């Protein structure tokens, strides 16, 4: 039985030798090119690697696995006793020699002259001073190639010399005299001196402590303690000037002053009248009131108009299904408003607002806006980049509106401006005769409230829909509904009559049409509104 250790060594050494022969590492030419450093590196590598492997392989010990021949077939015997008498190994010296030979072959293939030179130069390159840290002498500029000597300029023809030249050529005159050819003078090109950077980094022969001291002195040279203290005092004085604004801004942040205050007075009764239980339960937050609004509730003639108004108001402003909503905490609906709310508001803004608990939140928002503008001025005074954005106009963060339902009045819409605390805000009023839950009533209400809030709505193009078959026919009731997917009742007035039929309203594809309407409204409305 032959130990696997010997077999493996022979195979590996043979493979290394074969590879070396194939790559030419064992050729005579290769040996003649080897330099002394290469030979030293190969010898060092071969002896070190062989010693390390031999230390682990223990050539003096027999393998515990061996290859045997039984009935002419090779069999691997494993887990043999350490000193099994039948296991034969190469002598220890031969194994070591094979190891050295194998690594020498590898070294011959790898440690070529170039590779050894590169490896030898690594420490020198690592220790070389870097240009980022030291002032290094300028790299020698390459010797400029000799500039070709310019050909002498052609002789300058002088006036009145033609006859003299002719006489000279024919031999009648011995010299040309003043007509001798003269070359045009060539102005010498001025040499441009190369710009040289002033280096304040460490000099190559500069001790480290000297360099450190030099840096400290350079840093402190331009700074005067008196100037520094003076600038700090100026900064402090500027901040003191804005102290009230700073404190007020902090107060607004802590107390949670609204970022906007918009009030709508509606002449309808509160759809959620307050009972005595409100004392204990508190008011329902607006986020809950307007969360999960159904798309198109089954309104009837008996549906309370105020519920319908609240629903449409919520859909236009706060429904998340149509994209980014407004913040409902910035809006207050004042139900049960008097018929002449807007007239009274215009006559005595502050008195009316105060009577309806609207003055305090409006003033808080206006004050917050003023403070925000003041803090931006402070940043400019301190030569800092303002961190707060430019506050929107007062009319964007505060607004008042009235929605009047009066059966005796005609439909109307007016707009004017008010002055509260020196700031101009908008007042809009819409009057409608009635609110109907059936038919096109909700559509009219959507349009009316959108106008009240946004002032105007973009005119939307009519949809190019296919003609609608009669929905009254009994056959193909599903297919007959298909054109409704493209027939927008907000735009196509012809289809509004269909909404008188509850069974059509139940299946009308309102989602995409309402989506288009609210999207158009919000694009107009949000362009007029802002938040602090």
């Amino acid at each position, binding site marked *: 039985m032959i130990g696997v250790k010997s077999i493996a060594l022979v195979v590996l050494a043979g493979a290394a030798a074969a590879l070396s022969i194939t790559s030419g590492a064992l050729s005579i030419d290769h040996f003649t090119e080897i330099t002394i450093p290469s030979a030293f590196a190969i010898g060092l590598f071969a002896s070190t690697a062989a010693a390390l492997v031999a230390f682990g392989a223990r050539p003096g010990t027999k393998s515990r696995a061996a290859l045997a021949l039984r009935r002419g077939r090779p069999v691997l015997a494993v887990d043999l006793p350490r000193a099994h008498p039948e296991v034969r190994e190469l002598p220890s010296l031969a194994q070591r020699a094979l190891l050295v030979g194998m690594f020498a072959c590898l070294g011959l293939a790898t440690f070529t002259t170039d590779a050894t030179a590169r490896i030898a130069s690594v420490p020198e390159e690592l220790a070389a001073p870097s240009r980022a840290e030291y002032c290094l002498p300028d790299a020698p500029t390459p010797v400029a190639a000799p500039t070709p000597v310019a050909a002498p300029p052609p002789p300058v023809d002088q006036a009145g010399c033609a006859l003299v030249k002719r006489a000279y050529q024919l031999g009648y005159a011995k010299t040309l005299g003043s007509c001798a050819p003269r070359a045009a003078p060539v102005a010498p090109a001025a040499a441009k001196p190369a710009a040289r950077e002033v280096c304040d980094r460490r000099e190559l022969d500069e001790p480290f402590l000297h360099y450190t001291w030099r840096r400290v002195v350079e840093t402190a040279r331009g700074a005067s303690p008196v100037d520094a203290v003076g600038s700090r005092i100026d900064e402090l004085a500027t901040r003191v000037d804005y102290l009230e604004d700073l404190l007020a801004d902090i107060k607004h942040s802590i107390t949670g002053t609204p970022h906007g205050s918009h009030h709508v007075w509606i002449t309808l009764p509160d759809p959620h009248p307050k009972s005595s239980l409100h004392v204990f339960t508190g008011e329902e937050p607006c986020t809950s009131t307007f969360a999960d609004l*159904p798309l198109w509730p089954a309104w009837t003639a008996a549906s309370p108009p105020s519920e319908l108004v609240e629903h449409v108001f919520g859909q236009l402003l706060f429904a998340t299904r149509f994209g980014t909503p407004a913040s409902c905490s910035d809006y207050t609906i004042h139900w049960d408003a008097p018929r002449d709310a807007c007239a009274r508001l215009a006559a005595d803004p502050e008195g009316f607002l105060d009577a309806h608990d609207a003055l305090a939140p409006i003033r808080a928002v206006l004050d917050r806006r003023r403070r925000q503008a003041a803090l931006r001025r402070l940043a400019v005074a301190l030569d800092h980049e303002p961190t707060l954005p430019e506050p929107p106009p007062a009319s964007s963060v505060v607004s008042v509106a009235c929605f009047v339902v009066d059966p005796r009045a005609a439909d109307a819409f007016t707009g004017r401006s008010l002055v509260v605390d020196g700031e101009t805000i908008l007042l809009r009023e819409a009057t409608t005769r009635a609110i109907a839950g059936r038919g096109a009533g909700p559509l009219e209400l959507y349009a009316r409230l959108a106008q009240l809030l946004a002032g105007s709505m973009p005119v939307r193009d009519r949809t190019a829909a*296919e003609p609608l078959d009669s929905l009254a026919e009994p056959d193909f009731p599903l297919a007959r509904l*298909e054109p409704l997917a493209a027939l927008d009742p907000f735009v196509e007035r012809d289809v509004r009559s269909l909404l008188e039929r509850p*069974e059509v309203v139940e299946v009308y*594809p309102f989602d995409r049409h309402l989506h288009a309407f609210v999207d158009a409204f919000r694009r107009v409305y949000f362009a007029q509104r802002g938040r602090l």
Partner: protein
Amino acid sequence: MKRAIVVIGALAAVAHAAPAGEARVAHLAAALTELRAGDPYALERELHEAIRLRCRTGGATTSCMIGVARELCGKRSCLAAADVIVTNQHAERDLVDEPTRMRLVRTSSDYHAAVLVELRARYAILAAELALARPAASLALQIDRLCVERDQIARRCASDAAACLGSLPYQRCAAALVWFASTEPRGANP
């Protein structure tokens, strides 16, 4: 016999429906019965070919499609089933987006069969919603209720959400579910 089954099925469903939706539920029940009784894929293919031949000028309008379907059914009792098929065919362009249709054109030997497979994948999402909806006395009633109420709640899908169907008009929702519930799946290249 077939007519009797249709009538009985429709009556059973209507018995549990609310008055406003009685006709709708009866129609859905009739469509389910008709599709289950015959070969829905054969009828679908037949309708598709006829509509392709006669309604292609300027896009197939529902009135033309209805006319073709009415003619094709003739004396056969397949009007309710044809209504479902026509609605699904009319909604095809809205349910399968342009890139998907282009892919199907490139990769399928039978475009229409491939579209049916693609639509079925979308119907399956609806069917999952139906399975999770509160049970009703009949399948037709459950489909009707789901499709009437489905758009009432906010339904927004992320652009890359594969298993999400956004807002869907009633008739498309109902037709899709009736087709899905009454047919077996088929490969794109049968």
